[in-house]
């Protein structure tokens, strides 16, 4: 992922992808929209006559900012909100440059449209912890330009120079004490040209950026009024569930829906295509409970003849074998043969196993589609609007511009709503196609979700390390076995020489420096759909690296933090991580040095998505499980746009990462069938499993902001296990942690 090192400063750049356009709304407001121009660059500043006709609707789907006559500022958020706080962070960035009255700001999730694509990735999406990193500059410019137009309007009215005017809290003040609210200026501002460039604030001028700003969506999420995708209720809406094959890719041979159709409220039962070339049986009814009851009564015979029936135990055996052979090279430096010359006493070999993991976001997967024959409307909590929108259009044989795609608030996602094949939306569209004019909501039950695939892939790591006389590794050979996430998706072009970097990230680009270093990878083909799971490869790579480093430190009888400092290469790229390590060291020193009996401390540090993180965990053992009393985390994410969100993401995100330590934190297959069904057997962390307190410390920085959604996840599991090892003397290389 990109790791931008630019400083937060300066003039705005001219947008490469389009130009801003101001228009008046019918109600006398100001609307600032982005127009895309695919053929020319730098169209800003063109004369009004050259502009496309103003949008007819009061609120076109390409608007970013709307200033209403009653002084509200409505800001479109170009990506999904599913917990990460972007619905507050992006508006606050824009509002800061706009000098808007924060109490008058309203945030809305933007629908699918080209203008809302991620400026770097080129598709509308949430992923790679890039929301703030990629849209920071974009939203600042939008705010600053809108402000400039409001100021120009006021200056024109007062007949003064614009630079004699000041702005604060949605008011423009003139040199003679005049003042006008933004709302009063909105209509006139719409007639001002959009400035080509605009001065952005110096960090010292920020009023919201860098301050603790509370979420805009808290109250509605506490009083039950916020509508998630699953809460959608449209007139005449039907609800669908699907009976999917017990093995991925299997097909319906025959089905008997006699009993199902007798359930009062059932409308239709029919076969639809599902993922991996399989088919399933859709049941459509007036309500969820009706559909679910009817589905339970279906008798389906499946054809499993042409699909592989995977078995976790056998897969692990296979993977272990593969790990003993060299794979495709993912990193190589120094002498590749050095490891073979290491004396047995200095050779250290470790093998790790990681199971499949389900994301299981709290809100079950769902999508609503209404097909109107020549048009359609979709409602989905989507991390990948661009793909999901196109997929629905394709299934319905419509041009994408005939499909309106609303982004719904989502109850978590962690990657599960960023699916390159859009299988949920395809199912929903296939079903809705049969009910012209009627909205149909497809609901996945929790069982559907846990059994439904798209897991964090299972992995085996085999690491051989030659330890030098100084106790530091001088040869390192690392083989990773795991399915590629990118292969066979539109992202496959990101693979280099057959290597999916998301399988080895965190290993091949480690900041630890070993002179003779080789990483290779095997990507077996397995009949289980896999997907990025919050922090992707770092979930397992950080666990391997950080438990190994601490073990090597103990072997060398060196303090584990000192050992890390010695091994981290003294290069500018490692500066962020080192600063986080130092801050964590400082902030945890007091409690680390006065641990109660039976408690131990474990450490981990890891950089992912450009953000350096270090953590220390205080652990004891209770009921054969780790009891995590306290965690200190230090974060280096460049400029912290909203430190409150950073704190909250890290306090909670470290515990999300504990999913893989939970005794029930695994998905396994037998005879092609997933063995877990629901939270009774696939068990994520609950409150007693999480740390009692987490104190988060942010390294002060004026560098460009980097992500905070994924970087919390990798660090806590290795830190906890490092502490456990001190208490029990055992090593834990197979996850989940069934017992300590």
């Amino acid at each position, binding site marked *: 992922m990109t790791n931008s090192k630019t400083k937060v400063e300066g003039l705005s750049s001219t947008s490469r992808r389009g130009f801003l356009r101001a228009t008046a709304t019918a109600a006398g407001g100001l609307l600032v929209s982005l127009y895309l121009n695919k053929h020319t660059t730098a169209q800003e500043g063109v004369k009004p006559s050259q502009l496309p006709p103003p949008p007819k609707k009061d609120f076109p789907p390409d608007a970013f900012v709307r200033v209403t006559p009653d002084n509200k500022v409505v800001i479109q958020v170009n990506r999904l909100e599913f917990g990460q706080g972007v619905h507050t962070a992006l508006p606050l960035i824009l509002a800061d440059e706009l000098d808007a009255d924060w109490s008058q700001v309203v945030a809305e999730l933007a629908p699918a449209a080209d203008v809302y694509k991620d400026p770097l990735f080129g598709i509308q999406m949430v992923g790679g912890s890039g929301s703030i990193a990629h849209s920071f500059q974009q939203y600042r410019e939008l705010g600053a330009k809108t402000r400039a137009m409001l100021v120009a309007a006021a200056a024109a009215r007062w007949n003064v120079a614009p630079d004699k005017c000041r702005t604060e809290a949605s008011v423009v003040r003139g040199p003679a004490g005049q003042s006008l609210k933004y709302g009063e200026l909105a209509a006139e501002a719409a007639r001002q040209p959009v400035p080509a460039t605009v001065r952005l604030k110096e960090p010292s001028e920020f009023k919201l950026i860098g301050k603790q700003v509370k979420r805009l969506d*808290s109250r509605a999420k506490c009083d*039950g009024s916020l509508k998630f995708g699953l809460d959608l209720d449209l007139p005449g809406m039907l609800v669908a569930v699907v009976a999917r094959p017990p093995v991925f890719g299997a097909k319906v041979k025959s089905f008997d829906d006699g009993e199902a159709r007798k359930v*009062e409220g059932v409308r239709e039962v029919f076969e639809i295509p599902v993922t991996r070339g399989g088919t399933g049986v859709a049941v459509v009814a007036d309500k969820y409970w009706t559909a679910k009851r009817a589905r339970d009564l279906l008798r389906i015979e499946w054809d499993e003849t042409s699909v592989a029936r995977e078995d976790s135990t056998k897969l692990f055996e296979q993977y272990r074998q593969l790990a003993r052979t060299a794979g495709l090279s993912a990193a190589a430096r120094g002498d590749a043969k050095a490891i073979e010359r290491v004396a047995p006493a200095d050779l250290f070999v470790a093998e790790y196993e990681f199971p499949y993991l389900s994301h299981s976001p709290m*809100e079950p997967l769902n999508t609503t589609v209404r097909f109107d024959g020549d048009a359609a409307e979709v409602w989905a909590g989507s991390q990948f609007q661009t793909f999901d929108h196109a997929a629905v259009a394709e299934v319905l044989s419509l041009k994408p511009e005939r499909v309106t795609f609303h982004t719904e608030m989502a109850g978590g996602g962690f990657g599960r709503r960023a699916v390159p094949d859009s299988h949920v939306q395809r199912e929903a569209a296939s079903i809705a196609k049969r009910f012209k004019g009627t909205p149909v909501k497809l609901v996945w039950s929790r069982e559907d979700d846990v059994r439904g695939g798209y897991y964090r892939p299972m992995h085996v790591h085999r690491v051989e390390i030659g330890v030098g006389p100084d106790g530091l590794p001088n040869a390192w050979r690392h083989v990773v076995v795991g399915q590629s996430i990118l292969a066979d998706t539109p992202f496959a072009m990101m693979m280099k020489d057959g290597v999916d970097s998301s399988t080895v990230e965190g290993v091949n680009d480690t900041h630890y420096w070993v002179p003779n270093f080789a990483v290779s990878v095997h990507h077996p083909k397995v009949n289980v759909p896999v997907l990025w799971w919050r922090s992707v490869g770092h979930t397992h790579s950080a666990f391997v690296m950080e438990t190994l480093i601490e073990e090597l430190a103990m072997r060398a009888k060196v303090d584990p933090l000192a050992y890390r400092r010695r091994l981290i290469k003294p290069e500018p790229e490692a500066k962020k991580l080192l600063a986080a390590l130092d801050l964590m060291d400082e902030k945890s020193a007091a409690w680390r040095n006065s641990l109660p009996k039976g408690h131990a401390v474990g450490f981990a540090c890891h950089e992912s998505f450009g953000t350096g993180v270090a953590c220390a965990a205080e652990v004891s053992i209770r009921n054969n499980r780790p009891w995590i009393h306290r965690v200190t985390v230090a974060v280096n994410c460049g400029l912290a746009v909203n430190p409150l969100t950073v704190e909250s993401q890290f306090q*909670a995100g470290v515990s999300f990462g504990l999913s893989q330590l939970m005794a029930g934190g695994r998905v396994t297959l037998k005879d092609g069938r997933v063995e877990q069904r629901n939270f009774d057997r696939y068990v994520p962390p609950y409150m007693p499993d999480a740390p009692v307190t987490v104190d988060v410390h942010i390294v002060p920085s004026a560098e460009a902001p980097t992500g905070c959604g994924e970087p919390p996840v990798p660090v806590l599991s290795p830190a906890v296990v490092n502490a456990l090892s001190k208490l029990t003397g055992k090593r834990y290389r197979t996850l989940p942690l069934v017992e300590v």
Partner: protein
Amino acid sequence: MAKYQLNVNGERREVSVDPSTPLLWVLREDLKMTGTKFGCGVSACGACTVHVAGVATRSCVLPVALLGERPVVTIEAMANDPVGRAVQDAWVERDVVQCGYCQSGQIMSAVALLKQTPKPSDVNIDESLGGNLCRCATYVRIREAVHLAAQKLK
């Protein structure tokens, strides 16, 4: 189908549903009160927690036919309940929510706890909220907000 008279948030409501229908789906689909959430359907996550005769109850496994006369209170009524309001305010003050999907259930469990145990210990909190899954894992701030609400209610 059968007719049921319910008392929800102090109001009489009548529904005509299959007797097996869990209270959760009656609330969400028949009464259009979607503040109560569906997370698992098997009493394993707490997203559907409501108060039945004052007791925190998983509405996803309570068939409406077994409800009887017992009054039901949901998240939609919490703003008008002194303890409920204090808990919601504490949640907002501590900026607890992330995706927010579990929080109706968390708040219903917290209110039930505080009504029984006005000064809960961490162990009390673990016991009462320990079955409420938060997949975003906002547990640290939930715990702080429960303590804060308790303080405010003094």
